[in-house]
C-alpha cells in the first residue's frame, strides 16, 4: 500500500475540519475513527444496508461508498449534528413515542433518510414513505412503526394536532 496521504478540508456538523487521509479510507471510517462520530454506523460496507447514511452537501449519501477524500471542500452532516441543532427533534420524538426503533443501529441513517423525504414531500403517503426508506435496512422493527412515526411527523409539521 502506498503511504501517500491526501489533505482534505471540509465542514463537519458546521465545524471546520482539516485532515490527512489515506486515499482508500471511506467517509464512514473517517467520521467514526478519526472524528469519533460513532453515530454513523456500518452495516455492510458495500452500499446496500444504508446504515452509514450521512448528508453531504445536503443530500443523503452512503458514507461507505464515499471516500473521505471525496468530501474535500464539502459539508457533511451526521446524526450528531442534526440532533444537536434540533433540526429533527420532532421526528426523533415521534420515533420514541411510536417505538420505531429497537436496537437503534439503523436509526441514525433512517432518521436522515426520513428527514430527506419530509423536506421534499410534506404529505407523503405510507407507500411513498416505504418507497423512500427502501434503501435503509432494519432487521428489528418490521418497518410498520417507522412508517407510522414518519407519517405522524409529516402530519404535525403540516400543523396537525400533536
Amino acid at each position, binding site marked *: *500500500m502506498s503511504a501517500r496521504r491526501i489533505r482534505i478540508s471540509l465542514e463537519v456538523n458546521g465545524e471546520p475540519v482539516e485532515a490527512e487521509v*489515506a486515499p*482508500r*479510507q471511506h467517509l464512514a471510517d473517517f467520521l*467514526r*475513527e478519526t472524528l469519533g*462520530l*460513532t*453515530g*454513523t*454506523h*456500518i*452495516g*455492510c*460496507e*458495500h*452500499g*446496500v*444496508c444504508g*446504515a452509514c447514511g450521512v448528508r453531504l452537501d445536503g443530500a443523503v449519501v452512503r458514507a461507505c461508498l464515499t471516500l473521505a477524500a471525496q468530501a474535500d471542500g464539502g459539508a457533511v452532516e*451526521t*446524526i*450528531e449534528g442534526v*440532533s444537536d441543532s434540533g433540526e429533527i427533534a420532532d421526528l*426523533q420524538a415521534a*420515533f*420514541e*413515542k*411510536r*417505538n420505531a*426503533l*429497537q*436496537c*437503534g*443501529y*439503523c*436509526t*441514525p441513517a433512517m*432518521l436522515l433518510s426520513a428527514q430527506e423525504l419530509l423536506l421534499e414531500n410534506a404529505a407523503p403517503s*405510507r407507500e411513498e*414513505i*416505504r*418507497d423512500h*426508506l*427502501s*434503501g*435503509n*435496512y*432494519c*432487521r*428489528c*422493527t*418490521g*418497518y*410498520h*412503526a*417507522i*412508517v407510522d412515526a414518519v407519517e405522524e411527523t409529516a402530519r404535525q409539521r403540516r400543523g396537525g394536532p400533536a
Partner: protein
Amino acid sequence: MTERTSPLSALDRPNSYIGRAVPRPNLGRLLEGRGQYVSDISLPRMAHVVFVRSPYAHARIVSIDAADARKGKGVVAVVTGAELANVCTPWVGVLTHLKGLKSPPQHAIAVDRACWVGEAVAAVVAASRAEAEDAAARVLVEYEELPVTADMDDALAAGAAPIHPDFGDNIAFERRLDVGEVDAAFAQADAVAEAEFVFARHTGVTLEARSIVADWNPGEQRLTVYQGTQAPHMMQNIIARHLGLAEAQVRVLCKDVGGSFGIKVHVYADDMATVALSKLLKRPVKHVADRVESFLTDIHARDHRCKGRVAVRKDGTILAFEIDDRTGIGPYSVYPRTSAIEANQVVNLVGGPYAVKNYRARARVAFQNKNVTCQYRAVGHPIACSVTEGLVDRAAAAIGMDPVEIRRRNLLPDDCYPAESAAGMKFEALSHHAALEKILAMMDYEALRAEQARLREQGVYRGVGIASFIEVTNPSAAFYGVGGARISSQDGAAVRLDASGAIVCQTSITEQGQGSEAIIAQVVATAVGAPLERVRVILGDTDNVPYGGGTWASRGAGIGGEAAWRAGRALRDNILSVAAAILQTEAAALDIAGGEIVDAEGHARIGLDEIARIAYFRPDTLPPDFQAELIATRHYAPRKFPFAFTNGVQAASIEVDVRTGFVKLLRHWVVEDCGRVINPQLVDEQIRGGVVQGLGAALFEHCRYDERGQMLNANMADYLVPMAGEMPDIEVAHVETPTQESELGAKGAGEAGTAGAAAAVANAVNDALAPFGAVISEIPLTPELVLRAIGAIS
C-alpha cells in the same frame, strides 16, 4: 375484571405501569447516535484482528507461511491454530439430554483441517483493521483439497464418506417418536395428504455484525470482554473455562447491541480466538466481522427437508400426523447450545395446536461441509408450523372443507387445560379458538373470500392463508441445564432505594432492543409504588448484576420480569417497615403510591426521599434495634412447567402476479396470547419485527451454496432481506391468558411473529394458485418457483 388473589392486586392498581405503553428509557441516546455498540469501543493500545479464512469447504492445511505477512506495516502478530491451541482449549457442542448427539472437538482456529468455507485458519493482528487485512492477504496457506459433502441428503446417504472419520457416518443426532396408533389411524382415514416441505438455509443478518473487544490486563490478571451478547454469564463461564481462568477473572460487559435474534447467543470460534489473542498478546484486541464474514460464519438456521403426512376423516377430524425431518448443520454442533435443538423442536412442535393423539416423527441431523447452523429466532417453530399448517390445509382441500372450519374442528378446545400434546408438550392454558375467532373478525374473513372470488373472475389471483401455532417461552432448566450446560434458567434482580429516594434495579437479563430496560423499569416501579421516571435499570455487566441467563428464548419478561417483580415487592416491604418505624404505626397499615408512603385512606404521609434521608443519614433517629434494609434481591426460575407455552394465529392476504411469479404481500394479521402484557406497544413491535423476519424467510432469504460448498450470495446485494417497500402493515391483537406459575403472569412474545408468518404466506400463495392446481411446498417462494408451479416455465 376477574378476581385475583392478593399479590396480583398491585398489578392492577390505578397507578400501575403494567399494561401501559410507556416509552423506553434508553431510546434518547440511540436516537441521537449516542449509543455505545461494541463496534464503537476503542481502548488504549487496542489492536485489530482479521482472520485468514479457508476458501475450500473441506481441505487439509498443509502449511502456513506467515513470513511475508509479518513484515506488513502495523502487524503485531500472525497466529496459527496450533499456536492458539496453547492458549484456548477446544470445545465439544453436545448436551447429555440429547441422547446420542455427537460432535468433534472444535478449535478457535482450525488446527490441521478446514471443514467449511470461511473457517478461520490463521489470525493476523495489526494496529488497524486495514493493516491487518493487508497483511492477511500476504499469509500463504497451502491446502490439500478433501472430498466435499455439501448436501444433507448426500451426507445421510448409505455409504457416504463421513466428514469426521472417527464417527463412521454423518449422523450427528437422530430422534424418533411414535405415539398412539399411527398406522391404524392412516388405515382408517378417508383421505391422506402428504408433501415434502423444503426450508432454505438462511441467517440472522443483524445490522451490527458480531463484535467483540477483549482486554487482558496481566497486572490485574483479569480479562474484560466487551461483547454484543445475549448471555453475559454464559460467556463469562465459557471464556474462563477455555482460557484456564477462574470465572472471577473474567468480566463480560454488554452495552448496546445492534440486533441479535439468537445470532449472538452462541460461542463463535472468532470470539474465542479474539479473547485468546488478547491473553497471548497482553493488550486489547478487537474483532468486528465484516458482512462477508457474517454470512460465512454467523450461525445459519433452518435448512430442513421434512416429509409430512396427515390422516383425516370426511368430517374434518384429523387422525394422525407423521413427519420425517432432515437437516444439515455444517461440520460441528455449535457450542454450548448444540445444533440438534432445532430438529428436536420440530419433533416437539408438529401438530402441537391440535387435539390429535397419533403422531410419529423422525428427525435426522447431518454433518456437512457448510457453515454451522444453530438457534436463530423461533428455533424450529417456523418449520413445525409450516409443516403442520401446510398439512392441515392440504387435508382440508382433500375433503373439500374450508381451512377455517377444519381448524375449528381440531384445535385444542379452550376449556381443555391443562393438556398435553401427542409429542408430550405440557400446556398450562392456551386460547386457540379465542385467537382464531378474533383474527377472523379482524380480517373480515368472509369479505376477503368474496373479494377473492370477484377478483379471480378478472384474472387477479389473491389468496388468504391462516396458520395457528404454539410457541415455547420461559424455558426452565429442561432446555439446557439438565443437559449439563452451565446456562442459567434462573434470573435475578437486585432493587434498592438510593439515598435520594430513587430506585435502582440491577437485572441479569440483557437488552438488544426488545425493551428489556423498559419492561424491568415498569415492573419495578409498579412493585415498589414509585414513579417510573425515578427507576433506573442496570444490565449487561457480570461484575454488577445478579447471576442469570440473559435474554433469549423469550424469557426476559417472563423470568427476568418476575425476579424484578419479587425483588421490587420485597423492597416495598422493607421500605414500609422503615416507614412504620418512623411513623410509629404498623407496616400493614401503609402502602406506597406515586413515590409516597400512604395510609389506608390514601393520604400521603412521607416521601421515599425522606425515608431514604432518614435511613441513610439519620439512622440515629430510628428505634435502637431497628436496621433499615433498602436493597432486596430475588431470583426466579420456572419449575412447574418445562416451558410456558403460548399460542397464536397469523393470517396473510397476498396477490400472485401469474405473469411474473411475484408475490405481493397485501395485509398481515396476528393474534397472540403471551399471558399478561406488560407493555402492549413493545409486545406488538416484537411481533411485527418477528413477522417480518418470517416474511423474509417466506419470500427472499436463502444462503445459496453450490455442490462444492461455496456460498454463492454472501453479500447483502445477493442475499435478499425484507426492505420497507415490500413489507405490509401488520395488525396485531391479543388474547391474555396469564400463567399462574408466576405472580406477574407474563409469558414470552419474541418468537411468535417468526413462528407463523411463513406458514400463513405459503398457505395464502397455495390458496391463490389453487385454480392452477399448483401446490408449492418450498420456501422462499421465489418468482421462479411460482412460475414453475403453474407451468409457465419448466
